[in-house]
């Protein structure tokens, strides 16, 4: 089954697997990273596999991101929480709960500019952190992010804007990093 590249490709009542993956891979991996999943790529692969094998249970329309997004997010949440329980660790933090992650001090000490930014992102509030990871990991449009999170697009825009501002404020005092205006 070749991926068509276009968004929601479907074959009858079943989705095109490659198109499904291409559409949701970036925001899903980003969301899992924001949740603190130990191996987000691995978990994301499991999410797609679960979704594909259990597609008979999906009652929405494959071409509607507002149907598919919450379904994938639900599978992702269950798998991540189950993995955390197996490891005896706390469950992942959802994007809409506050975070207590420490700042980027260790990354700054290591002198890695990208690592500094990532550490600063991880120090953001959970909802902003999720929006940043989901949007910038693969350049996913905000529409898909909104569908996956089950929030309006304007909310995603707002979270991204606040996140960029917070990052600029947090990092500006530490290192000289480029800053700019509003997102698309």
């Amino acid at each position, binding site marked *: 089954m070749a*991926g068509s590249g276009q968004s929601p490709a479907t074959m*009858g009542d079943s989705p095109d*697997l*490659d198109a499904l*993956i*291409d559409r949701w*891979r*970036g925001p899903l*991996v*980003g969301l899992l*990273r924001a949740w603190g999943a130990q191996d987000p*790529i*691995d978990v*994301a*692969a*499991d999410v*797609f*596999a*679960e979704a*594909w*094998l*259990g597609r*008979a*249970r999906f009652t929405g329309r494959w071409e509607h991101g507002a149907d598919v997004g919450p379904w994938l997010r639900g599978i992702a949440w269950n798998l991540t929480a189950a993995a955390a329980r197996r490891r005896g660790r706390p469950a992942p933090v959802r994007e809409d709960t506050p975070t207590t992650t420490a700042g980027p001090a260790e990354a700054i000490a290591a002198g890695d*500019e*990208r*690592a500094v*930014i*990532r550490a600063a*992102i991880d120090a953001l509030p959970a909802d902003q952190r999720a929006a*940043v*990871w989901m949007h*910038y*990991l*693969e*350049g996913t449009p905000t529409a898909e992010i909104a569908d996956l999170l089950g929030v309006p697009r304007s909310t995603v825009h707002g979270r991204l*804007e606040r*996140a*960029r*501002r917070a*990052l*600029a*404020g947090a*990092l500006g005092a530490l290192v000289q*990093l*480029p*800053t*700019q*205006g*509003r*997102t*698309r």
Partner: protein
Amino acid sequence: MTSTAQDEMDHDALRAALAPLAPEREAFRALVRARIEAGRGSGRSGAAPPPDRPDRPAWLRRAAAILPPGVLEFGVLSKAGGAAQGLGGASALSWLTAPWLILGAGLVGWLGALRATARLDGSEAPVDALPPLGARATTAARHARSQRKLIALVPWLVVFWAPMLAYAPILVALFSGSTTVWTLALVCFSVGLTAGVLLLSRAGLADRRSVAQLALQGLSQLVVIAVIAQSGLAFAGPLTRFGTVPLLVLGVIALGRAAQAPAGLHATLSLLQLALFGLGMIWIAPRCLDWDAPRFVEWIETRTPAIDDLGTWEVIGQIARELPPETRAALDLDGMRATLDEAQRTGLRPHYVVGLAASRAGILTPELLQVYARNRLLRDNAFKSPRPYLVHANESDTLDVLAMRAQGLLGSSDAHGASDAREASPSAEHRMRVLDGIARGLPAPDEFHALLELDGYLTMADALGDAELATRERARIQHALALAFEPDVNGRAGFNAWPQGNATYIPYIDEASSLAAVRLMRRVGAPDQVDLAAFADGATLAAASHGLRAPSNSEVQAALLRYILQRDLPVPPTTFAARLAREAVFLAALAATLLALWTVWRAPTRPSADEGPLGRGSI
């Protein structure tokens, strides 16, 4: 992207920071596909397992390899699996026939017999070893009371109780065909005999002759029923199939001698019995139809079925589609060709079953094929109708498709891509519409005859050049196979036309569904829930023919099932334990015969209250 304000983080910097952590597109796709494959194998998808095959812990699976099936089915597995089947019908029957329990009952009977004979031995104790006179008098009085009670009871016991123990299980076995029930019958006979002798001996009524006559009656019944029930023992091992009856006959002869019948009459009767049973064995003894391709070819080439003998035509078609193409092309089917020609000359259109069988055997002429082209698909849909085609997985639609394809109405089977085909020609569009109708018609896994329909649709899709339908529908097919598999219906595994979960489900083995299951499994593999070894054993059981007569159509169909199952699927080899289990009836018959002989040997030679089983002078 422009920098219009210095109070926000730059997009490019954020992308540059996060993009290296993004998964590579193709590698990620491959990873997902690998997970999907693994999920299919492990049942990780969350798809519900069939209702009667709950996941079981490893220790239970190991225990199940050692313990007899009935015990675990009844006791532990039902609880561990969470299925509410513990005391339900099938499990309760399994419990009743659990070999361990039968062996336990046999052991109790054996110990009882030992105790009885020990008392017989005690009657011969020397006088100086006896207790004092007063104690002896008390014991004698107690024994006398007991003995009188037993004497009153014995007629009832002999009339009702002993036959119930000895014969009732045999009657059950007669209608069962199960080797397990047969084993139960034989051991129950032994226990009943021993218990009966024990009672008779205690009552002082039994001598060796009467005990031998009782055993003789029992074993004689067993011999008769063993001969009749041979049809149910084809699955059993060679000792059981060919050794049980001779063994029991020898036991009867030995008991007849012990019963002290007049020597001449006894010898005559014995020889007559042996001769009759020998003839019965030849006639009734099952033969496994272990046929290969040449044998099937021989069977087909010697058939000349009438035009309305649909059963034979159907089996011919089923065999023909399983033969190698070169073998099929070389078939000598002049007799069948003549039948078809005659039907055509008289203006008869043979039944669709006949037409499809002839097509599969390669003897359907183009002219006759076109007779079938004026059928439902063409007539109802008329190609111009915008309605979707409704394609059924039956002989008429299959022939319709074949005929339309031969007429060039369905395009080339080389045209695979949907968009290409639609653009190629109107006939290619019809082909796509028929394929679409096939996809719409695919049954749900729990539908009645789901396996037959899936096989039929795959056959039609193959004819239209869409060989990938099986791959695309692998999950559906495997689910249907899992639901239709019956691990044990009257001692045999196979596939049911009524899948589990269907509202009208009944436990049943359907030969046509079993054949379809093999064809489906060789395309998509066997799901974990299907026990191929048990399925192969079941096919062997069904592929048995009896007596000197020619095998029936259903027996040949079963032989074909066994043939393609062994040929096309990875059936595990039979283990030593399984071979031993197949000889359970013979071993039980041996135990029953030996126990009967031993009991007779240990019985007192004369019926006597004075020298009876309860001791000298006990009355």
